[in-house]
């Protein structure tokens, strides 16, 4: 558990962050630029001087009325937006900088970090010869050598082009599954947030406006993300089988099955599916003569107007919540109302892992 109650005062900006988040998994801090998300991360690292409050990570108190633990004693892993590798050292020098300063790093731990991020091939390179993605990998490895109690990532992908992003995203997936420390990930990209987050924290004008499990935050109507034109819902599922004849695989979630193009993931692996609200349609009776494969029974939970011609509908399929964006007219033809049992048709999905 991470408990934070911090107030930071900058020239004309006040960050007032009061929250509790789980002490495991990835918490994405999501907000537009200037919302204070980087300031929050810096405050947690002890890099913002003009601040006061309380901060507890696990059972360590880093800050309260009496004590303030300085950054170099906090045992944090911090990855800066621009990687911030030391220019005067090569890759090995950058990594050794930490190894020299932390006591009791076992050889096994060091080599496990190196293999987690494929560092071996980069180790004798000059930092100037690395691509943006390689720089970030070295920066993450360097941060993990601190044996951090928490890993803080400040928009680690924002300086990279799409190709580099896709190169490095799988590394975040493995961080997620192989590390047992909490990860705080700052981003302004809804894509990254929906792909990586277990827990989502929304920040706006220096205030935390929402904080909870990712799909809750994406689909709750009192949260801004459910009202954007690219509103999405997240479903966590598991590969349970394939139809090799059609090159399809079956993903199980909450007692139902998604049928999607086979991307080669082994059976039993966990996958995250992202469904855009505009790719979901609703019927009252189950359609039979249709090209759509993914049709599930659902119950309407709530309907809100979205702009002048549309409505956003939140539906529940057993334990899973899904958003659908329809026209006003369709909603009125279907006579949609809260509690109504319907069928949802999902035209397309994105598989995120």
């Amino acid at each position, binding site marked *: 558990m991470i408990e934070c109650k911090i107030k930071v005062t900058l020239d004309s900006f006040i960050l007032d962050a009061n929250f509790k988040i789980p002490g495991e998994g990835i918490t994405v801090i999501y907000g537009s630029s200037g919302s204070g998300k980087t300031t929050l991360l810096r405050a947690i*690292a002890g*890099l913002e001087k003009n601040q006061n409050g309380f901060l507890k990570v696990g059972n360590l108190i880093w800050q309260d009325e009496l004590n303030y633990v*300085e*950054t*170099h*004693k*906090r*045992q*944090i*892993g*911090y990855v*800066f937006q*621009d990687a*911030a*590798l*030391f*220019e*005067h050292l090569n890759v090995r020098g950058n990594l050794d*900088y*930490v190894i020299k*300063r*932390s006591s009791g790093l076992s050889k096994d731990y060091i080599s496990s970090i190196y293999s987690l991020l494929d560092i071996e091939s980069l180790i004798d390179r000059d930092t*100037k010869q690395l691509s943006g993605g390689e720089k970030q990998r070295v920066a993450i490895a*360097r*941060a993990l050598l*601190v044996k951090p109690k928490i890993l803080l990532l400040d928009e680690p992908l924002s300086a990279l082009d799409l190709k580099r992003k896709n190169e490095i995203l799988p590394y975040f997936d493995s961080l997620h599954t192989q590390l047992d420390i909490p990860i705080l990930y700052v981003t302004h990209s809804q894509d990254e947030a929906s792909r990586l987050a277990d827990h989502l924290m929304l920040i706006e004008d220096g205030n935390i406006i929402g904080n909870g499990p990712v799909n809750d935050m994406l689909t709750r109507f009192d949260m801004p993300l459910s009202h954007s034109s690219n509103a999405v819902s997240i479903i966590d599922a598991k590969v349970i089988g394939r139809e090799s004849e059609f090159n399809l695989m079956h993903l199980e979630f909450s007692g139902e099955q998604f049928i999607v193009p086979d991307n080669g993931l082994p059976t039993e692996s966990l996958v995250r599916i992202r469904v855009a609200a505009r790719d979901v349609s609703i019927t009252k009776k189950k359609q039979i003569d249709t090209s759509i494969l993914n049709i599930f029974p659902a119950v309407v939970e709530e309907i809100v107007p979205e702009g002048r011609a549309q409505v956003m509908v939140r539906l529940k399929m057993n334990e899973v919540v899904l958003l659908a964006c329809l026209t006003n007219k369709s909603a009125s033809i279907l006579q949609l109302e809260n509690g109504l049992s319907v069928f949802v048709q999902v035209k397309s999905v994105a598989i995120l892992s």
Partner: protein
Amino acid sequence: MINEYDISALIVTIRLAIVSTAILVIIGTPLAWWLSQTKIKFKVIIEALIALPLVLPPTVLGFYLLITLGSNGPIGKFLESLGGNSIAFTFSGLVIGSVIYSLPFVVQPLQNSFSSIGRRPLEAASTLGASKLDRFFTVVVPLSRSGFLTASILGFAHTVGEFGVVLMIGGNIPGETGVLSIAIYDHVEAMEYSQAHILSGGLLLLSFLLLICVYVFNRRFSILRSAEK
């Protein structure tokens, strides 16, 4: 051609330049670091004070130093009350004069170089477990190599070339305070142009070579920096 007096002037000059440069780097580094980091309001006053020797006639500086360091001056009196001698007309006095006179040539390049590092590498080092002093020696110093080099060369060259301050507080005692620039003046006064030529030409060449070093190093660093971007 070159007499004993010239040789001793050369030795005193080089000794003075080395000692002064060492002291300049030792006191200039913390001063420049503080100036590059501080946000206090009277910073400009300190900066102007350090820069004063750039515009002040050296004789003015020498005059005030003579007043304060001489046996009737506050510092001179204080030293004599401790049982020592006045340091005007001594090598130590010359060193003090040179350090003050060359201070801006050391502090300014260091301050520029410290400021250009930015806070990011230092923040990164602190997240990696490095304390304040550790960060200074393992991040700031290596990233400021060119600044240190420029500062040392300029401090050295400027000390070699000074005349006015030395004339006022040095007294031209052979082997103690007699330096090259004054030896040249003496040769010209005595109409010994050929000796003045040798010493002047030597200083000209030395200064030129030192400045080439400064520019070569700064160029190399700036090329390296821009190549990364």
